[in-house]
Every structure is written in C-alpha cells, then in structure tokens.
C-alpha cells in the first residue's frame, strides 16, 4: 500500500444531485472523507445512501455535482479514480458457484493483479476474512455471515485506499457482525478511507469517526459523534407506547412543562409518544399523571440518553428505523 496514496483526500463530494426522472434521490450532498477514518452515512431506508455510493463508485451517473476519489474525478477520469477504489455492495456480489479462492482471484485480476502478487494477496485476504479453511468451498454453502465476509474480501484484494461499504451487516448474525467491524477497523488502521452506510444508529456510533445523517436525499446533520451528540442536546428522550388521544396530549404536557420548557413533545401518534425531557427520570411521575388525566394508556416506557437516534427524531420528527 503506497503511502503517497494516503496523502490524498479519499472522497470529496460537492453538491451531488441525482434524479431518477422527477424523483430526487440525492439532493445537494457535500462532504469530505479522509484516509485513516471511517465516515458514516446514516439514514433510514430510502434516504439515498446507496444512490450516493453508486455515484461515488462510478456506476451511477450524477445529475450534477462533483465527486473525486483519490483526487481523481470519477466522471472525467474514471480509470484513475477507480484504480484504488474498493466497493463492497449492499447486495452480495460474488459467484455463489465458484470456490471462495477463485472468487478472490477473479476479482483481484479484474483490478489488474496477476502472477505471484495475485496469489499472495488472495492468501492474505483469505486470512483476513477468516476463510482459509473454506477457501476451496462454494460460497453457496456458506452461512450468510461468511458470504458477507467473502463479499468484503472481494472488494479489498487490490488493496484499495478508498473503500465503500453499503450496509454490510444487514441480515448478518451478531458474531459475523463483530468480525466485519474488526475487518473495517483493520482497514482503517492501515490507512484506508472508509465510507460506511448504515441505518443502524448503534453501528454508526460505534464504528464511525465522522457521521453524516441523511433523510430524503438531504444531509440533515454532519460532524463527529461528539459534535452530533451536542446537537442532540441535553434532553433525554422518553418514548411511550400505548394509546394516546393525540389532540389532548400536547396541551397537558405543555402545561406541566412551563415555565422553563423542560418538556417537549417531539412525536405524538395514537400508539406512540416521544417526549424530550430535561432529567426525565425525575419528571416521570408528573408526566404519567398528566397523561392519565388526558385519558391515555401507557403500556411501555423507554428512556434514552441523547444519541443519534434522538437527534434524528429531533431533526425529522420520526424514528430512524421507521
């Protein structure tokens, strides 16, 4: 892995727009992702994450805006830009009926590796993804997690300096998920710039050095985890499920929140209520009393410290995993 490559900026996106006909899937997206860091793209299904990844990998033609990978424009110099770019697609992209080792050889060769170097890299990657024992077996006989690892391995045979990972842990058992996290941090520690999309808030919090939150194609928040937590505010989030008379809930909560606006209704639905509260635990009795008076029935209560989830609810008025 040439160190000179790492001096470059992994990904720079400026004003990216992608329309599918009338529909705008990505709307004015801009960010910068550096080597040696994991950049998280967090957003619910349909936010436009995969579309953005498609544009960065050169598979999808942007409607407007500019993207550079390793300082090369992906549209105007696709070859140079793609040379050290590794893509790990959301859907598996391996041959299920070709032995794991042959899959890796094939994808390595696709990026111009050959001879001894190719053989060496394939061995290294098999080691990295923990599939040495199953190298000769067909991926269709693998567990979902092993297939994901192979899918990951196929994207890094050519030692990319920029790696795009699109929801790599969807449908993966917890153990394999841990293994994938390790793989990602390993690549980051070796200096790669990693763009990681997910709709799991915990995953982003745990893995990402920098996070952009997307919704409806737009970036609604951006920063380090600490910065985003700050944006989320001091307020805890109290999520209540049950039956709520939507019309009456807001006034009664507002009534007990005065004079300092210590409580705020973020979301009021017939079966769910989300309230931002300063030091919520001390206010629970008052809240329950008020709700009871309004004719609500509470069946479950969750109290959350401020996090990305609460930030998302605060910014969009809806749950991330809707």
């Amino acid at each position, binding site marked *: 892995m040439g160190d000179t490559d790492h001096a470059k900026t992994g990904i720079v996106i400026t004003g990216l727009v992608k329309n599918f006909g009338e529909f705008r899937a990505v709307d004015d997206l801009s960010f910068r992702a550096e080597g040696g860091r994991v950049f998280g793209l967090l957003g619910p299904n349909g936010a436009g994450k995969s579309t953005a990844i*498609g544009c960065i*990998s*050169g*598979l999808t033609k942007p409607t407007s805006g500019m993207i550079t990978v390793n300082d090369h424009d992906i549209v105007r110099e696709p*070859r140079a830009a*793609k040379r050290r770019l590794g*893509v790990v697609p959301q859907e598996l992209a391996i041959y299920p009926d070709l032995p794991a080792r042959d899959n890796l050889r*094939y994808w390595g060769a*696709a990026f111009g590796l050959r001879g001894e170097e190719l053989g060496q890299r394939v061995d290294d990657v098999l080691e990295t993804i923990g599939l040495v024992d199953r190298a000769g077996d067909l991926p269709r006989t693998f567990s979902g997690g092993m297939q994901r690892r192979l899918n990951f391995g196929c994207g890094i045979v050519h030692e990319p300096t920029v790696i795009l990972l699109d929801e790599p842990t969807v449908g993966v058992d917890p153990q394999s998920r841990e293994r994938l996290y390790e793989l990602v941090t390993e690549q980051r520690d070796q200096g790669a710039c990693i763009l990681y999309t997910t709709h799991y808030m915990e995953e982003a919090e745990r893995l990402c050095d920098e996070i952009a939150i997307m919704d409806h194609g737009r970036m609604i928040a951006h920063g380090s985890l600490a910065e985003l937590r700050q944006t989320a505010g001091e307020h805890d989030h109290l999520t209540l499920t049950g039956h709520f008379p939507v019309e009456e809930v807001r006034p009664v909560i507002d009534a007990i929140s005065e004079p300092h606006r210590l409580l705020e209704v973020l979301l009021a639905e017939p079966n769910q209520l989300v309230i931002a509260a300063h030091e919520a635990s001390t206010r629970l009795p008052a809240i329950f009393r008020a709700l009871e008076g309004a004719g609500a029935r509470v069946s479950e209560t969750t109290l959350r410290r401020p996090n990305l989830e609460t930030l998302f609810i605060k910014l969009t008025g809806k749950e991330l995993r809707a």
Partner: protein
Amino acid sequence: MTFLLLGVAKDISRWLRDPVSFVIYLLVPLLVGGLLTAVTGQGPTPTGTLLVADEDRSMVSRLLVAALFDADLGDTLRVEKSDEAGGRELMNTGDASALLILPDGFGEAFLRQEPTALVLVTNPSEAIMPRIIREGVEIVVDAGFYFQALLGDETRAIYDAVTGDTSDDVDDSAAAEGFSADITAKVTRAAPRLLPPALTVELVEEVDSEEPVPLALLMFPGIIMMAMVLTAQGLSADLWSEAEAGTVRRIAAAPQGFVTSVAGKAIAAGVLTAGVSLVIAALGFVYYGLEPWLLLPVAGWLLICAPALYLAFSLIQLAAPDRRAGAIVSSIIMFPLLMAGGSFFPLEQLPEWIAAIGRFTPNGFMLEQLSGIVTTGRAGAIAGQIWVAMALAGLGLFVLASFATHRRFAHA
C-alpha cells in the same frame, strides 16, 4: 490476459457444475436425430422401388417400359408395373420411391414430335433413390427422343400398322426389347449432333440436391446445429445469474475489465457449445463412417460459430425485461430457427420458400457450411471469405453484447 483466462476458467468451471444441462443439450439432438432417422427408415445404404404406370399402352410406351425394366438393379432398385391409382396409393403409404406415369396419348404425341410430358412422382422422405430414378428415366427418355428424331418416319409407319393392338403378348415385348438395343447403338453414334430433347420429365415433389446424399446424412449437420443452438441458448441465460449475483455491477466498478469479462464469457460459452456439438459430430462421424480427419475443419467451424451464436442469444436475453421473459422469448425464437434452419428436416427437403429463409438464419447458414464439409468430404468446402465473415460477425456481436450488457446491468 490473466483476467481473460480466469474469466474463461471461471465460467467453464461454474457451468460444468451443472452437468445435467449438458446431458440434455447432448441427448435432445441425438434423440431427435435418431427418431427422424427411424421414421424415415433410411439407413446409410438405400434401396428403392420404381413403379411404372403405363396409361398409354402404346407401342412407344411399352418400349419405354421395357427399357426401364432393363435398368432394374435387383437389390438397389426394383422396377414394378402398376396403374396410376394403385401407384399413387403405394406412394402415399411410402412403400415406393417413385412413380412414373406415362399418360394416355403419350406415344401418339411423341411420334408426332409434339411436346409431351412424363410425370414422375417422388417420395419426399427419401433423398437418394428418387434422384437416381429421375436420372435413369431422363436417360431413357432422351434415348427415346434421339430414336424418334433419327428414325421418326420408320417408327411412325410401324406404329400405324399396329395401332389398336392392345394385346399384351410376350412376343411384342421381346421384339420391342431387341428393337431398343438396336436403336441405342445408332443413337449413341448420332447423339452429339442432336438437338436437346423436346421431351420433358415433369417432376412432382422433386428432391433438389446436387449430389445424391442419404437422408440420414443430410440430417446430420442439422443435428449438430441443434446441439449448438440448444447449448448457446441455455448458456445465454447465465447473464441473469450474473445480474442477480450482482457481479456485473461489481465488474463495472473496476477501472477496466468490463469488456474483457464479456469476452471471457463468450469464449467460455463458445468452448462449451462447440464442445457439445463436437461430441455429436464425432458420434455422427463414427456412425456414418466419415473420414476422421474431416472432424478438424468441422471443429474449427463449430469453434468460430459457437461464440457468435451465444452472443446472439445474449442480445435476445438482454432485450428481455427479466429472466423468465428472456427464457420464453429466446425459446420462441429458437424453435422456428431450428425448424427453418434445417435441424428437424434437412433444408433439401423443406418447401423451397422455407429453405430459402432457412439459409438466411444464422444456424441455417452455419449448417450449410457444415453440410459442405460433411457431404462433399472436402476439408476446404468452406471458403476463406466465409471464415473471415463469420469471425467478423462474431466480433460485431461481441461489441454489441458488451454495450448491451453494460447498459442493461451496470447503468443507472
């Protein structure tokens, strides 16, 4: 280069994991070939029967019949007397190779040097005997014409003397036979100076082939092509597997190699398709006792045709909205192609207008060239330009398929 070779190896190893398909690609043509050969009842050595219906019963017609009986070749060709209705019956049931009808008034017209015609009905399910018979009849008829041109006046006198005599006694026939031998000698001497005959043999359901070739052997190249078309069509569906596996998109994300990946696939498909058809060809070579070394040009031709055929089917798949539609559309196209292209019935035996279309189908064209090698026994039966043209066609299809694959599966 590494990538191309790995690409070829990748698909061959993947496809060979499903040997059942290849058994099907092999068995179907063998079965069809075997069935058709059995139905037509034609082995490699033909025998046949010529029915002669003398509706004229004149002196001339009897002479002609006698001359035809001279041509009886025992085991190979039997000549039998019949009447028109009975003869047609036998023809319909397929129990005779040909029926020659000497129509009423034939002798009269013949002697007066008026245009006249014999009717020869041939059996379409037999390729070689009707052909031999036709030539035989033509020779005899020609001889008759020469005879008449030379000795017309004398024969007319004889004819007039015996007019009305319809008896069938042995003496007459014997006399006629002696007579005909005598005349043949004269004709042979005079022949070069004579005008072309005014007599025509009118062929009904004539079999049109340059060389007499046994039907089963005519079927042989069609069977090879059937194996080729089935395999190429079957393998072309793998594009959907690639699309579903996401591998097409992944290769499109590589800096280069997309076109190479399409080439690798076409070569792999070509090798396997040609391989399957070559197995059929080799079996046929053994069965028909053909020169083994002719298998070489056959293999070469199959190898150059197979990738083109695969790519053509790929284009059809790429035009379809999904795997199911691709399978349906390509089958819908494949069966008429096999029909018209001479895989179920030799082109030589199809109605002319279908055969004309068939020769323009890709498989029909490939088949004609293949027939050239198999039936003439000449390794060089396929012209150099045709090899070049086929290679160029393959190249053109490759360029189209590369574009189409990218557009279809690696674009958004």
